[in-house]
């Protein structure tokens, strides 16, 4: 088969299709399709992977028995533990701490700093990471962080925007905390020396995001999460905390009365384990993108495998809103080596439009994410107006050159240096050519149910960030995830510290909850085929796996 001819990063036939986008561009500069009515939104959502038939089932065991979850999540909830009780000697405690934090993204790192500020010594706090400290979805957040700090804005409008975006399913008192704390978090970031985009007067540059009515998106170029996390990680490293890397939690530890009192960590390089006894445990493990729900590619980092939800659930924690999944409307669909990667919503905030193969703008660019994603799927698979890639994926154009038309030359390089760099590596110039996009699995909307203080229903167990459920309801808005991490990282850190100060020394450590859960699985007739947490996905080639011999 002859190799395909590429011109400026695109195969010839796509290059031809781009001409249609160029033809309508000037007209579209001052036109965008109107926002959908409630009815139109509802109709469009029928094709969203959350609502399209199949893909889900009832959870058959545990606190949320009978509720609906995606099959990939239900599979892990209905899976047996990866350790056996007799493999672990709980009488030898390796770390005896006040606060154990599992997960070192924005939520976990915030929690550590604030727990320390409450007077818990940094040597009595342990931060355990599955990968390196900071290898987290937080690091990849591009678009921004919401905070209602301008005079024409208010935390109440922020609240209302998020509530409507979440289809009024958010837990009100938790969402209130998010909106009210946001400006305080912004101030905290500045105190740590974070560099947030400013205009020539020194004011924040604040932009809109899907579903926001007032411009309140604060960005750090397109490295927002990276800037936020690296300043707080730097502060963390200045304070002599205990932390472990490549030590995922493989099971929580409980006492006779069910209270969570630490975890078993596993060294994923040497295979040995550590027993951590803790007065309070904060779960901050992030989400489940790497489960590839419904076979979608993902924007998420390598370790996003839902570990925290699985472990908390076994210990008795209630989940909520796990039936919905956020698909980011604009994941990369071409070229093959970056399929699924995030193309931030900020592109659309600044004027880029989704355009079909005939060069038509077919959707208001800033619908809430679920509506926007569904509209893109509909355009590709029902209206048949998508562009098919050489590997058979479908996508629509995201007309990025409009950004430069609207805001002047150089805007893309200045505002999206990371993305500009990424596409340059693919020999694509996003200033001149549109990008091809398709929804990509982005965010776990629900999770372990939290209250405004980061408490779960299980004593001794706190949550913060994507692992938790409630604040976003069934759909999160852009700019509320990094914010969630910092608001509830802080709140869980403060409250875990308070709790630890009052708590007695933990009693006898057990794996009773794990044993009980396994016997419940057995009673429900579930065969011991699946084990969880999975810790990391497996992308090894099929040919190699077929010839593998397990010797050591």
């Amino acid at each position, binding site marked *: 088969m002859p190799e395909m001819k590429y011109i400026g990063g695109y195969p010839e036939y796509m290059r031809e299709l781009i001409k249609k986008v160029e033809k309508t561009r000037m007209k579209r500069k001052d036109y965008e399709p109107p926002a959908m009515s409630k009815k139109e939104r509802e109709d469009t959502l029928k*094709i969203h992977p959350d609502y*399209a*038939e*199949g893909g889900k089932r009832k959870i058959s065991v545990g606190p949320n028995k009978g509720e609906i979850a995606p099959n990939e999540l239900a599979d892990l909830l209905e899976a047996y533990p990866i350790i056996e009780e007799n493999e672990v000697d709980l009488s030898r405690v390796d770390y005896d701490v006040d606060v154990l934090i599992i997960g070192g993204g924005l939520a976990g790192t915030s929690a550590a700093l604030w727990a320390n500020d409450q007077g818990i010594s940094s040597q009595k706090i342990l931060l355990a990471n599955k*990968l*390196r400290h900071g*290898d987290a979805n937080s690091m*990849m957040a591009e678009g921004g962080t919401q905070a*209602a*700090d*301008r*005079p024409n804005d*208010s935390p*109440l409008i922020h*609240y*209302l*925007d998020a509530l*409507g975006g979440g289809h*009024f399913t958010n837990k*009100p008192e938790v969402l*209130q905390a998010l909106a*009210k704390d946001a*400006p305080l978090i912004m101030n905290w970031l*500045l105190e*740590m*020396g974070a*560099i947030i985009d400013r205009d020539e007067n*020194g004011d924040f540059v604040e932009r809109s995001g899907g579903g926001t*009515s007032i411009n309140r998106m604060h960005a750090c170029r397109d490295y927002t*999460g*990276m800037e936020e996390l*690296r*300043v707080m990680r*730097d502060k963390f490293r*200045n304070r002599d905390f205990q932390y472990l890397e490549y030590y995922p939690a493989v099971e929580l530890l409980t006492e006779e009365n069910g209270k969570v009192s630490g975890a078993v960590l596993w060294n994923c*390089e040497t295979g040995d384990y550590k027993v951590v006894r803790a007065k309070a445990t904060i779960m901050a493990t992030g989400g489940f993108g790497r489960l*590839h729900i*419904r*076979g979608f590619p993902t924007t998420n*980092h*390598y370790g996003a495998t839902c570990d925290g939800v699985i472990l908390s659930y076994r210990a008795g924690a209630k989940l909520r809103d796990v039936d919905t999944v956020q698909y980011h409307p604009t994941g990369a669909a071409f070229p*093959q*080596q970056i399929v*699924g990667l995030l193309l931030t919503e900020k592109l659309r*905030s600044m004027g880029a439009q989704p355009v079909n193969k005939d060069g038509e703008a077919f959707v208001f660019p800033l619908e809430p994410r679920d509506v926007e994603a569904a509209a893109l*799927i509909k355009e590709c698979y*029902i209206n048949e107006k998508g562009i098919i890639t050489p*590997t*058979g994926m479908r996508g629509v154009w995201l007309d990025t050159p409009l950004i430069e038309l609207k805001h002047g030359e150089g805007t893309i390089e200045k505002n999206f*240096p990371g993305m500009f*760099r*990424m596409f340059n*590596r693919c020999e694509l110039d996003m200033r001149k050519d549109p990008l091809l996009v398709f929804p990509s699995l982005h965010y776990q909307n629900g999770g372990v149910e939290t209250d405004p203080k980061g408490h779960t229903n299980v004593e001794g167990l706190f949550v913060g960030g994507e692992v938790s459920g409630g604040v976003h309801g069934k759909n999160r808005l852009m700019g509320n995830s990094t914010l969630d991490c910092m608001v509830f990282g802080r709140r869980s850190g403060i409250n875990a510290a308070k709790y630890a100060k009052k708590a007695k020394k933990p009693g006898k450590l057990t794996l009773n909850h794990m044993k009980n859960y396994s016997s419940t699985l057995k009673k429900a007739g579930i065969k011991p085929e699946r084990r969880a947490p999975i810790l*990391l996905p*497996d*992308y*090894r*080639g*099929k040919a*190699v796996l077929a010839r593998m011999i397990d010797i050591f």
Partner: protein
Amino acid sequence: MKEKKSIMDRIAESNRSVTSGIDEKDIKNWVNIYIMGKAYKVPAGVTIMQAMEYSGYRFVRSAGCRAGFCGACATVYRKAGDYKLQSAMACQTRVEDGMFLVQIPFAPAEKASYDIHKEKYDTNVFYKYYPSLAKCVSCNTCTKSCPQDLEVMDYIQAAIRGDFETVAEESFDCIQCGLCAIRCPAEIVQYHVAQLGRRMYGLYGCETPGHLTQRVKEIQEGKFDKDFENILKKNKKELEKMYAEREREKD
């Protein structure tokens, strides 16, 4: 409803090569590479990281965000017939025929410990914590090794001059992979110097917007508490109405 189900299946099918391991029967073009000295035939057009996975490596180290932000997958390689050592991020770089590659899973560089609130905003802060800065011979090896194409040597020179703004500006897109420090003959830890410089600039070189200070004060004084009390009492219908009627600010 049968049609809808098939749409989801069709989507899943078209994504298979990125959601599970690559199947060789889907591959048309191949390249030959060397991973830590061993030869492998791998699909053309995939990243170094995907090629290593295709070859049977399952990463624990040297893989993080897989999107060019975290700096975990720093890779050093050489091309056939070329003496130059090159560096890149494995998740962001396509494999090329004849690549000899190895991954750098960890940079053992020392980070200084400091409290930026106790430091003075002048160049001494750099020398105090990173005295090796004075040894920079302007060889530009750091710049050449940067997978983000940053002007690393320029910001190091800016740090020597005490120009915090340039340090911050030029180093802003640093993903802290550590390749610069590993290659530096003067053993400067450029990416840590930059982190110190950025935080100092963020704290001392940028003003806090007045409206933020004002809003923080309002929140602490409880200005919005009563309104929140009211809104929390509203039923779904009332909230839907408020949501539908809210005004949209133009960008």
